[in-house]
């Protein structure tokens, strides 16, 4: 156990508890704010894994843009408060399915790697290396993603425009 590992476990615990609060909170705005904590702890995990560029993109796009979009969505729709209004009737079945998936994943992880398995060396992950990789080897997927963003932009405008404004 190294200092890095203790820091990562602390971040993982914070992120997991906040994620649990996201799916159990009785107030939708609280759920969005707990989502900020989870996303920020994932960003911290990227920093500890030395993936600097992905970490800052995570903070900028997820915490900066996506959570704001969620808050706008919550403000534009009527958000009731209380467990019955936010959860459906099949909570027990959902718990069973989620625990089964967790157990299956844990089994697969300990089957594939022993618990003191491969160590992650801090390798390169800075903006220069990632940018060079995107714009040389992965330039075609990059263009596809930009086209997808354009399509999503036009789609969102078409969907949310009122029809009587022709």
């Amino acid at each position, binding site marked *: 156990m*190294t200092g*890095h590992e203790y820091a*990562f476990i602390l971040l993982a615990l914070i*992120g*997991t508890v906040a*994620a649990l609060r996201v*799916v159990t909170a009785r107030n*939708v705005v609280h759920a*969005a704010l707990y*989502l900020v904590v*989870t996303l920020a702890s*994932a960003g911290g*995990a*990227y920093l*500890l894994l030395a*993936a600097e*560029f*992905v970490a800052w*993109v995570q903070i900028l*796009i997820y915490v900066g843009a*996506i959570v704001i*979009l*969620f808050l*706008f*969505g*919550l403000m*534009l*729709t009527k*958000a009731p408060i209380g467990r019955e209004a*936010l*959860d*459906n009737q099949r*909570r027990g079945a*959902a*718990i069973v399915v989620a625990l089964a*998936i*967790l157990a299956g*994943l*844990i089994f697969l*992880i300990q089957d594939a*790697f022993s*618990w003191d398995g*491969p*160590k*992650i*060396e*801090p390798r390169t992950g800075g903006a220069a290396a*990632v940018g060079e*990789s*995107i714009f040389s080897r*992965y330039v075609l*997927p*990059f263009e596809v993603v930009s086209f*997808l*963003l354009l399509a*999503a932009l036009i*789609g*969102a405008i078409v*969907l*949310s425009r009122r029809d009587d404004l022709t």
Partner: protein
Amino acid sequence: MIRLPIVLLFSAALFSIGVYGVLARRNGVLVLMSIELMLNAVNINLVAFSQALGSLAGQVFALFVIAVAAAEVGIGLAIVILIYRNRETINIDEVNLLKW
């Protein structure tokens, strides 16, 4: 030096919490939030394996996943707001016109 299984465990926990949220929530916006939790779990795995294998491909694809997630949230919230405008509710178990 972080051991790989610890990172994978964090990601597995986030993923199953997201599955629970998608199955148990009935508010459309909260379902979208749970989907974001699952996408984040995938991203953590991609970055962890990218660093463990010494290849940048995982980080590049994590960036692509973030971009696709942003597009998905934009479209998803537009649909939710459209449903709210038409039906006065965003409870996805009441939007069952196509169910049978």
